[in-house]
């Protein structure tokens, strides 16, 4: 279980998260919704241990253990993985190197390079290419495959469908569902409400740094008043 409680995060003096809280049971997908600039990425970065933002108050427990204060690589070792907003691929690395630097090709346990290529056949075809030579969808697949190389049990995905053509959005949705079926716990930031409702068990809505609404995904879809109020959906 991921338990985030009363998080206050700052960029310098700018107070961005005002006591954000959420809980995510293992094996579930929680969609984190909210308009631009509401603090979704800030929350993801706070959990992953990336600085800035500075987290001045609150707690982040994963499987009962406090993550707050650990450096990002220690958090990653506790099987928390991230697919960052904007992909953040390494321009100097080939597709293959994105995977083998994190897990040697000869490794056997968990997610292997071979398994990742099985999961993402398009990446296998392009393994000698560099990140900037890939299409938007392929880039997103590589960002996901890279995160899988750390064998995450909890995956933080920050807008994985951002900027993708509708066909690719569907592909990424399929991937998220498969990962979920494989047992991953997923915190999914999503601007696309319909993707979020289709993929998640529950949704949380973030509004200026607070979670203002939580519901089962099946209910949230019918709650037009809430959707209009916080997401501007009509």
């Amino acid at each position, binding site marked *: 279980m991921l338990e985030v409680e009363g998080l206050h995060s700052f960029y310098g003096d700018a107070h961005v998260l005002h006591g954000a809280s959420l809980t995510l049971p293992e094996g579930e997908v929680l969609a984190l919704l909210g308009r631009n600039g509401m603090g979704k990425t800030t929350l993801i970065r706070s959990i992953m*241990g*990336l600085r800035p933002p500075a987290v001045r108050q609150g707690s982040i427990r994963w499987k009962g253990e406090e993550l707050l204060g650990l450096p*990002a*690589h220690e958090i*990653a070792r506790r099987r928390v993985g*991230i697919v960052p907003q904007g992909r*953040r691929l390494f321009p100097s*690395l080939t597709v293959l190197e994105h995977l083998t*630097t994190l897990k040697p090709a000869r490794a056997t346990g968990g997610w292997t390079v071979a398994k990742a290529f099985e999961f993402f056949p398009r990446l296998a075809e392009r393994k000698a290419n560099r990140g900037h030579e890939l299409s938007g969808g392929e880039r997103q697949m590589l960002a996901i495959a*890279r995160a899988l190389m750390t064998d995450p049990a909890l995956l933080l995905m920050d807008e994985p469908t951002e900027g993708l053509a509708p066909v690719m959005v569907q592909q990424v949705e399929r991937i998220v569902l498969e990962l979920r079926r494989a047992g991953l716990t997923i915190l999914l930031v999503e601007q696309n409400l319909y993707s979020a409702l289709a993929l998640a068990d529950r949704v949380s809505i973030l509004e200026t740094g607070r979670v203002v609404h939580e519901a089962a995904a099946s209910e949230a879809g019918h709650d037009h008043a809430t959707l209009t109020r916080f997401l501007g959906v009509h």
Partner: protein
Amino acid sequence: MNSLNLFQLLNGLTFAALLFVVASGFTLIFGLLRIVNLAHGALYLLGGYIGYAAALATGSFLLAVLAAMASVALAGLALDQGLLRFVRGFELRQVLLTLGVAFILNDLGLLAWGGDTFTVPVPEALRGALRFAGVFYPKYRLFVLALGLVVFLLLWLLLNRTRLGALIRAGVDDAETLEAMGVNIRRIFLVTFMLGAALAGLGGVVGGAFLTLYPGADSEILVFSLAVVIIGGRGSLPGAAIGALMVGLLNSIGQVMFPELAYFVIFGPMALILAFRPLGLFGRAA
């Protein structure tokens, strides 16, 4: 005005080879750790002095090289873990700190070795000159040229054909994201810092055998290395190679054809390159 002959051209190339060895370490540290290590020249001179002492004590040039590389790598370790880690993330403080270290190392060098000029003794096999294409050219300088090529090749293989190299490249690209993938980036930083320092030490011994060692040799090599890295773009190995070739050859041209303007001949073109490519020839925005 004289024109460049083969001898002077070779001088430019061999100086370029030495510059490459020193500047490759400088650019690795600059590219990954974002530190303009102004103590790099001092590490070069320290390596030279240690190599000189080791060569006298053991009579072996190879041992001198190894001793210099190892001790300067350790000096790099001390500098990184003992000082720089307290100012991580503050670029200006890091630069000023390395400048302070450069001054301190300078004074320590003066204390230990005085103001005299030393020349690292060259092994028997590399003494004398080779005759080819109508010139007599010192064997040792040809050795430096070959060494520059070998160092380029080894570094290229390290960066492009090993896992550590891929980690270093990824760290130069985006250290934060690499850390979020479970890599202890501090350890990669430290290894890189020590490698960069060891290359300065290697340069010191090798350069100390034909450019001589004296107080002030550190700032000269530092200024040239800065020019190389600025021209080539930070963190880029091919950039350092091209930058070193340009600076080495321009230095020869300057000395031969425009002796009064020797520095201008190097820094004029550098300014021109920066005007069109502010990040250097191979530089990439962070």
